[in-house]
């Protein structure tokens, strides 16, 4: 079991209100990602769930029991830290055994658990080394090993991949997703990287300045963001935002078009611009197009896009892919858009 309910949870450091009242229901077995820009309070909320930070007000229930003031050791949760936080004076074996020894598990059982964790995480050859003798990826695996042997009711990850290099990050991402499928245990995963969020999550909670802007599946957030912040945060490259003149009876103050929905057209189109920098990725091409009176727009084209720097282009987008936002940034129901 591993369902966690946050009820009107807040946190203040001194006079600073870091977490505004947050309500969130985390279901048993789901992989939920907290994503948001740096400093928005993701780690703080995760640490409050872990019990490493006090909760200023509100309640945290774990499996239906109020755990707001339960010490971390008694919450039955396991955490994987960004810095791995391995015990440098203990071998890999003893690092993994540590939580089991604290739980007074018999030695034979501990051995069996270590063996099975080492097998799942490919750590067999390193059990007698100290963490200092391991690479970043191996340390990460030990940290995960130390977490899984306890069979916690939920795993908490705080940016676990941000200290790894890019290719290793992709591998570990897959391994963690795989682990979630095998263990079928609740995982709460904090990251500032929306690609990690989109690729790993069952559900994503988008954070901004201490509040959750929206919670939903990756596709819900991509297709129906409730405001401009979520629309801009989810998706890569970022959505293009185009400010529009206020018109009587239409509250739209800004429209948004994702780069993949922006198209070059031979007709007049909605906007006209000049091609700037072109980024070829092989499978696709990103064009940065300067549009007078609007600013730069990013367009995602096929890999073999024939346009060159300095070309004049007309741009358009399907009406149902153009999002409208009001002055406060809230998403409006789609209305026909005819340029400004």
């Amino acid at each position, binding site marked *: 079991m591993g369902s966690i309910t946050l009820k009107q949870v807040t946190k203040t450091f001194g006079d600073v209100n870091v977490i505004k009242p947050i309500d969130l229901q985390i279901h048993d077995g789901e992989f939920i990602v907290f994503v948001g820009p740096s400093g928005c309070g993701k780690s703080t909320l995760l640490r409050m769930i872990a019990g*490493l930070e006090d909760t200023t007000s509100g309640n945290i229930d774990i499996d239906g029991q109020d755990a707001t003031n339960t010490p971390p050791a008694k919450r039955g*949760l396991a955490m994987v*830290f960004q*810095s791995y936080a391995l*015990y440098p004076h203990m071998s890999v074996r003893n690092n993994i055994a540590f939580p089991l020894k604290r739980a007074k598990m018999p030695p034979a059982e501990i051995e069996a658990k270590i063996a099975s964790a080492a097998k799942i995480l490919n750590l067999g050859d390193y059990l007698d080394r100290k963490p200092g003798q391991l690479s970043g990826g191996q340390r990460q695996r030990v940290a995960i090993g130390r977490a899984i042997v306890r069979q916690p009711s939920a795993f908490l990850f705080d940016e676990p991949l941000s200290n790894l290099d890019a290719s290793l990050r992709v591998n570990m991402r897959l391994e963690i997703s795989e682990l979630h499928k095998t263990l079928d245990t609740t995982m709460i995963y904090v990251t500032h990287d929306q690609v990690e969020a989109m690729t790993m999550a069952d559900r994503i909670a988008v954070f901004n300045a201490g509040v959750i802007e929206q919670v939903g599946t990756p596709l819900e957030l991509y297709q129906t963001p409730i405001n401009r912040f979520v629309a801009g945060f989810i998706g890569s490259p970022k959505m293009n935002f185009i400010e529009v003149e206020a018109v009587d009876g239409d509250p739209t103050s800004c429209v948004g078009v994702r780069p993949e929905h922006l198209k070059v057209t031979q007709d007049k189109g909605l906007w006209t611009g000049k091609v700037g920098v072109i980024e070829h990725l092989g499978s696709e091409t990103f064009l940065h197009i300067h549009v007078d009176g609007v600013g730069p727009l990013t367009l995602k084209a096929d890999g073999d896009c024939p346009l060159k720097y300095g070309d004049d282009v007309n741009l358009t987008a399907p009406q149902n892919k153009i999002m409208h936002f009001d002055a406060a940034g809230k998403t409006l129901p789609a209305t026909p858009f005819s340029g400004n």
Partner: protein
Amino acid sequence: MAMNNSNKSKIIYTALAWGISGMIFFPILWTLLTSFKTEAEAISANPSLFMFDWTLENYSDVLARSPYFNHFWNSVVISIGSSLLGLVIAIPAAWSMAFVQTKRTKHLLMWMLSTKMLPPVGVLIPIYLMFRDFSLLDTKLGLVIVMTLVNLPIMVWMLYTYFREIPHEILEASRMDGCSIAEEIFHVLLPLALPGIASTLLLNVILAWNEAFWTLILTAANAAPLTAFIASYSSPEGLFYAKLSAASVMAIVPILILGWFSQKQLVRGLSFGAVK
């Protein structure tokens, strides 16, 4: 071959370093030499550095006149006892100051340090009276307590500085792994801070060994450590420089040996963790 600038400055610095250490060491050398002189030579108006009649008489006199080994044992008990007791109190204190900081932690640390800036005479009378009323005068227990309290601010400060260098997340990981606070300190903090704890222990053994103010005031015969033993040669029947020197050498040597073997650890300790 012309000497380049860096070589020249190296020579100057080396000469300076030797000069200064010579100046610092000279009184100790003088004491050592005096301890081998006769009393007459020791107070001679025309002292000779090495050319005198070397004698061990002072040492045998001193050993015959006073129970050196009693004093030595008292010094050992008081300095090691107070340092160990101090650690038992300072470790949890430094843990909370390093890892559970509040708005007031910094002020508390400053206040503790400020007690070291007060002249101890300021509390002489109350402490003396308390010792008298609790029958702690001239007991080793009494001195252990006083030395612990006198050195506690330094111990807490040193440990605090070491603990601050230990990544907080490692301690948090142990909390997540099911440790109580005592287990967290015992299984994770202490092993990681062991070099710092060793330095703290050593430095405080030395400080307590050399402390003279309280030991002179609060002891008579039974609990008197080596500092009181030295002092006893400068009072009753006038000054006996040679015997005083012999007593001093005998008091200094044990701590000098300890200091010699723990040099590296001590330098690290005194740089307050700045050198890793």
